[in-house]
């Protein structure tokens, strides 16, 4: 479904992505792991068209590198940014409605369905997004992206800074995503959630993919974990 080949990106003179290649299959959840500054967020931003990059990004057999972010989104890719980026002055319901790309088409998710899955958001439907807790904001961002009915979702650090209960909810949400056959590229620093949910994983270091395999492969490879993940 997603095929990234030899992706390069620069921030000024810094060569932040140095030939990243990865793939995500249909209905597959793939984790992209690594320490801070390894280039994971830049990789998803480059796929999304938010950072300019060179190389190749093919989605459903079509080259999408060079498209603007809204064009990438309309091809069927959803993006959940690291900083959540909810619209603070709009209500929870309005935030969700803005996730819908085309109100004339019915997608796999509706506002009412999201509310039934996450009653906490339903209780806060008319509350401004800006006053929600960190965990609630994260759920809102995830659900808002799903309202756009993506076939692939790029999720950047969904559990960053969240309380254990909220991390659990994010896990449940990702399981729901998986059940619906939606592919996901999950950027994470924490191993626990990635090893539980993902089918395959890539490990990044210094702007390159330094390891790829299954969660079992990573569990078995202590040397790689120590060198590229542990602080």
């Amino acid at each position: 479904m997603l095929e990234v080949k030899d992706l390069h990106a620069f921030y000024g003179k810094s060569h932040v992505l140095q030939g990243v290649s990865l793939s995500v299959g249909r209905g597959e959840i793939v984790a992209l792991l690594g320490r801070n500054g390894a280039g994971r967020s830049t990789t998803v931003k480059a796929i999304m068209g938010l950072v300019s990059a060179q190389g190749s990004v093919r989605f459903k057999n079509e080259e999408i590198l060079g498209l603007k972010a809204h064009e990438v989104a309309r091809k069927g890719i959803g993006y959940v940014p690291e900083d959540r980026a909810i619209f603070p002055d709009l209500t929870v319901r309005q935030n969700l409605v803005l996730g819908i790309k085309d109100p004339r088409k019915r997608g796999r998710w509706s506002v009412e369905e999201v509310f039934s899955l996450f009653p906490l958001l339903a209780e806060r439907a008319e509350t401004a997004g800006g006053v929600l807790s960190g965990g609630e904001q994260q759920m809102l961002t995830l659900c808002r992206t799903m309202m756009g009915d993506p076939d692939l979702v790029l999720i950047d650090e969904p559990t960053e800074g969240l309380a254990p209960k909220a991390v659990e909810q994010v896990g449940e949400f990702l399981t729901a995503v998986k059940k619906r056959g939606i592919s996901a590229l999950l950027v994470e620093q924490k191993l626990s959630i990635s090893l539980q949910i993902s089918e395959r994983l890539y490990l990044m270091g210094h702007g390159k993919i330094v390891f790829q395999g299954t969660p079992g492969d990573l569990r078995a490879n202590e040397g790689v974990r120590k060198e590229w993940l542990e602080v």
Partner: protein
Amino acid sequence: MEFALISLLNGVTYGLLLFMLSSGLTLIFSMMSVLNFAHASFYMLGAYFAYQISGAASFWAALLLAPLLVGVLGALVERFGIRKAHRFGHVAELLFTFGLSFLAIEVVQLVWGKAAVDYRVPSTLQGTLFTLYSTSYPIYKAFMIAVSVFMLAGLYSFLTYTRIGLIIQAALSRPDMVQALGHDVPRIFTLVFAGGTALAGLAGVIGGNALVTEPGMADAVGPIVFVVVVVGGLGSLTGAFVASLLIGILQTFMVGMNYSFVDFAREIGLDIHSAPLLARLSLTQFAPVMPYLLMVAILIFRPRGLMGARET
């Protein structure tokens, strides 16, 4: 009492006209981070277009067509000027709009001359609506209030109840995220710029004949509109509304009060012989400076403005 009521009505009229101008400027700034120095030029063009259309057809046709024409011009400026200048950073954008304001004045002088044109209030809107004590209140000022309130209600409904309005509100805080959700933000930028300039054009249509339609009219109102946006808070429509009314009412009251601080001191029984020149100046003389003093005070004590969310 008579003075207070009439000044209040005049102040509200002027304040609403200021809001019509500042609402567009603050929307454009908060969404696109473009400080449009040419904004008041669109107000001037609105007045000149209205003068031309009024002569060829009627004022009512001008009321509809002139803002539309200005809006189309605004869209073209955004699409083929500002968007290109944006690639070279904010300084390039700023210089572009600065240059555009001079270009607009030169073009207006070339087409309509350097003197004021005879753009008049239509005969159907001339006359007195009511007389309060000994002061008559013109129909046209009530009409200006009605148009402004209609515009205010329209803008509020558009931003609150329509999907595109919600997208605009969302893009005020996170345009990058709005785009990542699949909304064509550059197209929305064009729409907002067109809408903002059309509002400035509308202000020109109803203000050009009440005040004066001349090449200097943009320079006369431009700085005050910037003051309104700063005092209200960059990016806040509510702030722009409050600041417009505040400045409109305060300035109108001050213009009508021929008292100096020395006079006030005498009223309360203090006899000041050697007061400095500043204390001897009347409020009428202070009126033109008041908005700028207010802006300086706001920048010192509350840099984010009365209701702004951001400081830069």
